[in-house]
């Protein structure tokens, strides 16, 4: 039998000009940090990419003051039309430098280049284009006659979609007239720092965007800083609760986009071949390191065996390995710490009696890797059905009736997203009405668009990002009598 071996098709990293060390981006320029610099590594090889400054409380204070000055002096009083011009300019530069951003994202994060190239970077640019359009139309966004900016916004983002989460945070904040102090995750700071260069290239007034790198203490310093008017956070539910506690009793507002344990629900009349693709995309996109990942597959018992067989056949064709190869489908796990967590929870799944299966594909020697894994025979009471694994691990459960599917899907502390697969339109509408999840996808999964609000129910957080709803998080609404 012939074999169609795809020869290596590596994307060139020559397009990226990596500096040996990076400072903090405060008031429009790169400055040294006062803390202990740390290394950021390529999770696919464990090679060190660059040294990054750590921002201390003092550095954060400087950043907040710069943001406040820019808010008072320039950005807060600039016309929406002019803010829009800057945002359009940033969006266009992101498109022009898209290859550079994609390569850097893949190097720092470990995600396949085809995802950073086709999803992360285009969507990030789209968020700037979309919000650029709102900047001079806020009066018509049903936010009241004269929506005002909040002031200085502190933003803390995760490592799974470093540039995209930055765009989700910065674009609406700036469009509404706020200035920002943003902290990227400590394992993935590089595209945020490249974005800082893009802000310089776009002649964005100094202080409108400030980027401070560091780990938890730097984030805490932002949250605790009295000069911050609002916190926007995406990350784990645990940290989200800490933030909520920290700001309780202060004037600060917050939007929190936290964890998830989404149900991907497959009825017996689903379009099967596309459903299999949707299941794969739901849990193996970005190595499953997606807060809205379809990590619980709820499949109607009458077709469970067929779905399982088709799914495994499809998973055997996934190409796991070098994220820089254009044909790679599943890349590296972002960090040793995350890999340990995935490993630990998967072991717990086995110990609790679920049946473990993986693709048995070869894995590279260096770096952090986890094979696409499927657990069958999973019960609601298993840890792998309850806890967010945040990795390429699918838990398969079954149901018999639509009501049972709804009950099981909602039986989780989370409520970020859900998927429904059926050819019956009326059932889609009924399910969407019953599911307590911020996003319900019908016959698709993990589709994102700047026009569509995204956010959670229950412990998946509060506030929405994207769409008209997302603007509400960045303005004072009020009427003029």
């Amino acid at each position: 039998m012939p074999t169609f071996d795809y020869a290596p098709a590596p994307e060139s990293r020559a397009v990226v000009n990596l500096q040996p060390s990076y400072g903090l981006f405060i008031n429009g320029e790169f400055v040294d940090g006062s803390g202990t610099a740390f290394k950021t590594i390529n999770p696919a090889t464990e090679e060190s990419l660059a040294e990054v400054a750590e921002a201390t409380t003092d550095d954060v204070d400087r950043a907040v003051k710069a943001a406040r000055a820019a808010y008072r002096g320039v950005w807060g009083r600039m016309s929406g039309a002019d803010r829009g011009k800057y945002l359009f300019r940033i969006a266009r530069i992101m498109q022009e430098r898209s290859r550079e951003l994609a390569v850097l994202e893949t190097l720092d994060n470990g995600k396949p280049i085809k995802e950073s190239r086709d999803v992360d970077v285009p969507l990030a640019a789209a968020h700037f284009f979309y919000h650029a359009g709102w900047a001079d139309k806020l009066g018509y966004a049903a936010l009241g006659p004269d929506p005002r900016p909040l002031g200085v916004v502190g933003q803390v983002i995760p490592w799974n979609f470093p540039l995209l989460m930055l765009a989700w945070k910065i674009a609406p904040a700036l469009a509404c007239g706020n200035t920002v102090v943003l902290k990227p995750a400590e394992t993935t700071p590089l595209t945020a720092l490249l974005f800082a260069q893009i802000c310089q290239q776009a002649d964005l007034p100094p202080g409108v965007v400030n980027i401070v790198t560091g780990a938890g203490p730097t984030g805490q310093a932002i949250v605790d800083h009295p000069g911050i008017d609002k916190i926007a956070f995406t990350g784990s539910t645990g940290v989200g609760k800490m933030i909520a506690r920290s700001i309780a009793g202060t004037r600060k507002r917050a939007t929190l986009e936290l964890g998830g344990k989404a149900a991907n629900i497959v009825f017996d009349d689903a379009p099967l071949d596309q459903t299999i693709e949707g299941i794969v995309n739901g849990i193996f996109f970005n190595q499953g390191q997606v807060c809205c990942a379809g990590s619980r597959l709820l499949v109607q018992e009458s077709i469970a065996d067929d779905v399982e067989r088709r799914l495994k056949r499809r998973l055997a064709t996934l190409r796991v390995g070098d994220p820089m190869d254009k044909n790679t489908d599943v890349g590296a796990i972002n960090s040793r710490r995350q890999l340990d967590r995935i490993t630990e929870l998967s072991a717990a799944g086995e110990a609790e009696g679920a049946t473990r299966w993986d693709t048995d594909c070869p894995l590279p020697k260096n770096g952090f890797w986890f094979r696409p894994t499927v657990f069958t025979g999973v019960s609601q009471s298993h840890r792998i059905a309850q806890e967010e694994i945040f990795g390429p691990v699918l838990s398969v459960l079954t149901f018999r009736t639509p009501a049972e599917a709804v009950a099981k899907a909602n039986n989780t502390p989370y409520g970020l997203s859900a998927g429904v697969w059926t050819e019956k339109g009326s059932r889609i509408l009924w399910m969407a009405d019953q599911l307590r999840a911020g996003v319900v996808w019908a016959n698709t999964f993990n589709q994102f668009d700047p026009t569509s609000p995204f956010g959670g129910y229950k412990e998946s957080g509060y506030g929405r990002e994207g769409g008209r709803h997302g603007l509400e998080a960045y303005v004072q609404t009020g009427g003029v009598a």
Partner: protein
Amino acid sequence: MTVLDTAVDPAAGSTEDPAARARDLLGVSRLTDTSLTRWLHALPGVDQVGAEARAASLGTRSIKTTSKAWAIDLAISMIDLTTLEGADTPGKVRGLATRALTPDPADLTTPSPAAVCVYGDMVPFAREVLGHSGVRIAAVATAFPSGRASMPVKLADTRDAVAAGADEIDMVIDRGAFLAGHYRQVFDEIAAVKAACRRPDGTSARLKVIMETGELVTYDNVRRASWLSMLAGGDFIKTSTGKISPAATLPVTLIMLEAVRDWREVTGQQLGVKPAGGIRTSKDAIKFLVAVNEVAGPEWLDNHWFRFGASSLLNDLILQRQRLAIGAYSGSDYVPDDAPSLY
């Protein structure tokens, strides 16, 4: 769709009595429009957006260097080199057949296409040139391309081509009957043409069933027509005549590859797929091969199971082959073309 416990004997089923096998597969005592409708409409639906997204994602595979060279040769070997024009002459057909024997006189390692595909009356002229070279002769039949003729005419057309020496018959289904839900009629016509492919010595020309997917329009229809064609005894399911646009799109071919994959699971019988019409570049051809590889499986990467119906595709494949060999683009003047289109 569940896998049968007892696989049907493919040889007995496909060549002897398609109706008996169909009754067995459907679990019915009589094959009627109703029973066929029930069976075909129970196939899982196709979500258009999802199917097109999957095809697009297969199209992003990056096939370079050694794998590109391998894929180009495979694609050349899968071509049904085609001329189906009212203006065809014996001279043009001889030229096409000569080309099939020596696709690139500057590089004799270039593989031959699988077959030449011509109208039935042109078969003898192709045979003069091809002899027993191994390059097969496919003839279109059954009132190609419209299929609008009576059954006796279609069968005579088929027998005539087989008698003239065609190795393969490319028939068209009655799309009107299919769209009207007369599935039994479509089934009977395919089965009858299949029987007409039989030679006096007991062997049979392989039958490709052209569904003209551009006229079926929906992917659900493509899936149902594929299963109906396989059930009725087709050896190949083929997208198009090349006379209707759109012809062979990647999503349509994807649906058909899923159909032959699933058919083999149900019956144990492997059948072929032939996209035809509109595939003109090496880049496109390689996307189709990626789809074959990842959807149907590597067992289909052989010209016994997969064909491209094309005329100009060979030119571009040879151009790309030359580029890989010499490192620069030569140009169309370096690719001999015996059968340029008149239009």
